[in-house]
């Protein structure tokens, strides 16, 4: 790979249809590039019926040089023309045979035709239906195993469950509290500025309190849990699948759903209401900061909270979180179990867990809104 070495080519037309190429020097991966373009351009221009390649002055020839000679051979043969390579050092001749890829029948993937696109659409639809079936089957299996564990609590892996609860719950208190505080602060500030114009800033507490207890608290906490723990569940279980650890569990007679999914489901369902309480508390503190800025004394603010929200509002919000927790953990585990192969598979599973988790939470929240309306909650 000495840069000082170069390769050159001379050519002469022997007669009308015959061309002689004399290649000299060192044909390696660095010098072959320019020569390749030059020679193939000449061949394409002259279209010689017979090509004579004098390789006797090639000092060194690596894979790239052999590639050039093979390309010339293939080009001539494809066009039903002749080629004769003479004088190639016997040391390099075995490489011609070793490296010759022959006539390629393999083509790079092309853009799909209309018929192929319809076929792809059909395949994707079938796969989607299979996915739905797998999700329903997984939900049923997880539910049965969860019930079975609740009936026989000794079968639960308590240590794993506490560890997961610590990671998903205790370690998320800080971020949940911070988000709650900021949301309370921003919501109170934005509404206070608008409502002040109508002299109604006293109702800011009602707005923030109800919004936090009924909607924002559970939703924000669920989003935090989905992005922190849902993705972590998918990545953990996905990595285990790639490392064949899930296969090992199965062959050892241990049920992966009971072993991996149930502890995560229970941990998520248990920690999410607690996290929501933290979120609500810090949201109210954020709102209180804004209200004191607008001249409302703390005692008035506390009285207003008591009047604005009832236990039904608080419990209604918290009740939703149990479902959100189950959805986040279930989807995270399902995506982990369905992890494919390849280096991006775990990342894809984690992404799918977060996206599907958030969509499921919002859909579930919509269903709760309708349900609460009819139940007059």
């Amino acid at each position: 790979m000495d840069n000082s070495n170069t390769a050159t080519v001379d050519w002469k037309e022997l007669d009308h249809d015959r061309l002689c190429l004399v290649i000299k020097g060192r044909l390696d991966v660095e010098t072959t590039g320019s020569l390749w373009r030059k020679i193939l351009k000449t061949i394409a221009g002259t279209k010689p019926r017979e090509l004579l390649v004098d390789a006797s002055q090639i000092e060194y020839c690596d894979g790239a040089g052999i590639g050039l000679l093979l390309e010339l051979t293939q080009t001539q043969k494809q066009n039903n023309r002749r080629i004769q390579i003479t004088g190639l050092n016997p040391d390099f001749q075995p490489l011609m045979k070793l490296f010759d890829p022959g006539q390629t029948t393999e083509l790079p993937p092309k853009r799909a035709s209309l018929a192929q696109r319809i076929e792809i659409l059909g395949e994707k639809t079938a796969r989607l239906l299979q996915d739905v079936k797998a999700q329903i089957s997984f939900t049923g299996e997880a539910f049965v195993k969860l019930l079975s564990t609740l009936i026989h609590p000794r079968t639960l892996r308590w240590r794993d469950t506490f560890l997961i609860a610590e990671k998903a719950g205790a370690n998320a208190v800080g971020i949940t509290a911070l988000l709650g505080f900021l949301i309370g602060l921003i919501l109170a500030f934005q509404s206070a500025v608008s409502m002040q114009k109508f002299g109604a800033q006293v109702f800011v507490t009602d707005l923030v309190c109800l919004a936090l207890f009924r909607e924002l608290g559970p939703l924000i906490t669920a989003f935090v849990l989905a992005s922190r723990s849902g993705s972590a569940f998918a990545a953990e279980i996905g990595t285990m699948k790639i490392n064949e650890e899930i296969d090992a569990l199965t062959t050892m007679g241990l049920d992966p759903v009971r072993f991996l999914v149930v502890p995560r489901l229970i941990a998520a369902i248990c920690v999410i209401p607690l996290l929501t309480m933290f979120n609500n508390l810090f949201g109210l503190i954020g709102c209180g900061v804004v209200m004191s800025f607008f001249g409302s004394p703390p005692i008035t603010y506390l009285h207003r909270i008591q009047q604005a929200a009832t236990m039904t509002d608080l419990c209604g919000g918290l009740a939703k979180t149990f479902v959100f927790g189950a959805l986040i953990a279930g989807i995270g585990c399902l995506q982990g179990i369905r992890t494919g192969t390849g280096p991006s598979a775990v990342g894809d599973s984690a992404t799918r867990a977060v996206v599907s988790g958030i969509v499921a939470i919002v859909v579930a929240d919509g269903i709760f809104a309708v349900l609460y309306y009819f139940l007059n909650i």
Partner: protein
Amino acid sequence: MSTETKPVIRVKDLTIGYGDNIVLRNVDFEILTSEIFTILGGSGCGKSTLLKHMIGLMQPLGGSVLIDGTDIVTAQGSDRLGVLRKIGVAYQNGALFGSMNLMENLCLALEEFTDLPKDAMEMIARMKLKSVGLEGSAYKMPAELSGGMRKRAAIARALSLDPKVLFLDEPSAGLDPITSAQLDKLILELSHSLRITFVIVTHELSSIFTVADRVVMLDKNTKTIIATGKPAELRDHSENPWVRQFFNRQA
């Protein structure tokens, strides 16, 4: 087989380990141009760790590894890049880029380091794939290949820039005997035709006796080299009983 006796790699007084845990101490050996050199030893003796130090992936506790006159341990910037251009490495599990097909895996280094036109790169990639028996798999993704095919694809990728030295970590492990024999033949042909120097970490005795010019044997207990030489000589005449035992597959 070797027509030149100039060393292409000099490992000088190399001490390697992890923190206080010394794996190998004061290792010295030379590898000659176009030689097929094999690193042997029992499990856990530091063969793969030594290989990682020789290709500059790990920093030794002491000593140097000179590749074509440049110390890969201390080389920086363009010097280091120059050394890395001279070597190719085929890792034990292939280490193919999973998001690219084989053609893209092989063309990557060619695109980055040469001015070859696209059709030339594709031709070279096809040639290298053919040389390892993977013709017809150019547009397959690594995930679609078997373990053995991935290993061969990794060798083809390591060959893409025609390196001076090719490091192979357990190349025959997991391959069937026919493919393994084909790989041995390929190593011999490349060594003979392109004068590529091979540094191979392997346990396969049949491969060692077929291809290796010289071997170095490492020992876990003494943490150093216990034998260097031609495999047949070590098998028949080594003074170290463990070495003879190893080559004669005695329990």
